[in-house]
């Protein structure tokens, strides 16, 4: 990790691809009403979204915990053959923001370029219900896809969980929870892989990157703390308890053996960088197959901007995805 420590020179700007420097400074507070309003504006901007004409889009309402009816959006290429692989996709947004156009773009990219069905999970946000509501919904979505694979035209041996940012954390947690629940399931859910893109996976916010990057574009030390404050509000841990809720903070799980192969993509100038690297290293030690691709010169949520760096790391990600799925390569 030392090499990462040295990338910042206090007198000079970070070596970030200049394309990302126009990101708005985002500063979140724990004002829940403001966060809810922010979500309304995200929704208002999302309402203009136009899906590619090559896609079929449908919406499912499925049962989750506490009687919650969960929305899952199914996205697939027209004419996709039956028994297709499935990506269960958890969007990012610090657990408290709804999905934006970027996440729909991602879902569309996966569906179009990896010949699979994408199931995008509209999990409960932490403005509405703190942990574990989002995880309950994420897990419910995966189990629903697996349990209804035949009707959905999905190959249940080729299910991948994928997520960016907070969604990456949810994907990691779902992989852990699924592994644990398999012990009591007659039919195991064998995840083909977990794709964790600049994931949130450590609630302690104490790594070097989490403390050092106070002013990086999009995601900062402050926002990181606010995110956990809101997500874990009401938990014993946030009230000063010692026990860290492990399914909320994947890096704190002791036994990582037996988890599905992981593709982990930290971004270089991101408070979350080190926790992703730490998780990757810990998985490797537990003999889990790990592909660690650090997106150099990139920032958290870098995909918001189209530029060479974005294209490069998306291509690497898509190639890895197609490889796992046994497809030749990205077209």
């Amino acid at each position, binding site marked *: 990790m030392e090499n990462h420590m040295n990338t910042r020179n206090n007198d000079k700007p970070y070596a970030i691809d200049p394309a990302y420097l126009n990101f*708005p*400074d*985002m*500063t*979140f*507070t724990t*004002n*829940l*009403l*403001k966060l*809810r*309003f*922010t*979500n*309304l*504006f*995200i*929704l*208002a*901007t999302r*309402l203009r979204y136009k899906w590619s004409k090559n896609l079929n889009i449908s919406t499912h309402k499925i049962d989750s915990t506490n009687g919650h009816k969960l929305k899952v959006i199914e996205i697939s290429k027209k004419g996709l053959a039956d028994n297709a692989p499935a990506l269960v996709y958890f969007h990012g947004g610090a657990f408290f923001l*709804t999905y934006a156009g970027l996440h729909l773009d991602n879902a569309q990219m996966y569906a179009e370029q990896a010949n699979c069905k994408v199931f995008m999970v509209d999990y409960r946000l932490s*403005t*509405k*219900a703190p942990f574990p509501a989002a995880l309950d919904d994420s897990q419910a979505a995966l189990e629903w896809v697996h349990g209804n694979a035949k009707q959905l035209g999905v190959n249940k041996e080729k299910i991948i969980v994928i997520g960016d940012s907070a969604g990456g954390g949810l994907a990691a947690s779902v992989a852990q929870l699924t592994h644990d629940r398999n012990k009591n399931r007659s039919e195991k859910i064998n995840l083909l892989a977990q794709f964790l893109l600049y994931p949130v996976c450590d609630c302690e916010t104490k790594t070097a990157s989490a403390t050092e990057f106070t002013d990086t574009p999009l995601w900062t030390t402050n926002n990181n703390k606010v995110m956990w404050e809101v997500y874990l509000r009401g938990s014993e841990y946030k009230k000063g308890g010692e026990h860290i809720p492990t399914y909320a903070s994947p890096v704190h799980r002791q036994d990582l053996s037996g988890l599905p192969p992981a593709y982990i993509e930290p971004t270089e100038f991101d408070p979350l960088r080190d926790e992703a690297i730490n998780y990757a290293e810990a998985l490797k030690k537990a003999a889990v197959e790990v592909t660690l691709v650090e997106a150099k010169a990139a920032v958290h949520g870098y995909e918001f901007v189209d530029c060479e760096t974005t294209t490069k790391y998306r291509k690497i990600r898509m190639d890895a995805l197609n490889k796992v799925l046994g497809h030749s390569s990205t077209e």
Partner: protein
Amino acid sequence: MSDWNGKTAVITGAGSGIGSALAQHCAAQGMHVIAADIDQQGLRKTKSYASKPEKIEIYTLDVRSEDAVESFAKQCFNQHNEVNLLFNNAGVLIDGKSWERSIKDWRWNFDVNVMGVVNGIHSFVPKMLSQNSAGKIINTASIGGLLAGGTYLAPYQGTKHAVVAITESLHAELALESAPITAACLCPGDTATGIWESDRLRPSEEHNQLLSDAEQQMHEAVAGMCANGLSPAQVATATFDAIEKDQFWIFPQDQFKPMLELRIEAILKEQQPPSADQLLAIMLNNGL
């Protein structure tokens, strides 16, 4: 006026939501409560939920009708000689694209939310001015009476802006009278009430059909946001705290203030109302 015991409260829209909570709160304070609503079943529920149901009289009332409100006021004064707290609270919500909601829908929203308040002022205020005791008229507006530009919220926000303006005028006018009658404007934020299912109070042939997925998504999002807000009981408690302090503005949640500042700033600078993208950027940018 902190000893409410034996005083009289009149509450419209008391069959559900904030009105129901206010009625229960007033009854718990030992007040005589006249709870009015178009929804008789709702009124019975209000009475049954109350810790002191014997303090609550129920009255079926359509606040849109000036005649009905006038006879209601007469009956209240015949029985109690005074009204110390009048909550013009009945309110409904119509949402959807401005040009697609029928004129009938628009009119229904204005008739209940605006003319309901006006009818209450018209029939009760003259009688309250002649009673020999203090009284307050509390009109239920909303933070939607101070914030505008909500996508697909024109009918509702339009009515609530009217309630705010009417209440401010009422306050100024009452200040010129010698009687100890005052006004207050209640502006709740997100509150878990049935207002997003206002259609339940209309005949089935008048039920709304939101025409587009966009409107439906926005409806569900705002309704969902409100469902996670304060409980009506919390709003009632906060309202009473503010009444005790004789506040004109009653804001059970004040977290909307940064957004009000944003609006006022744009107006003062004569800028276009911000687009959703701009609002989003502002929300994300300056940590309001």
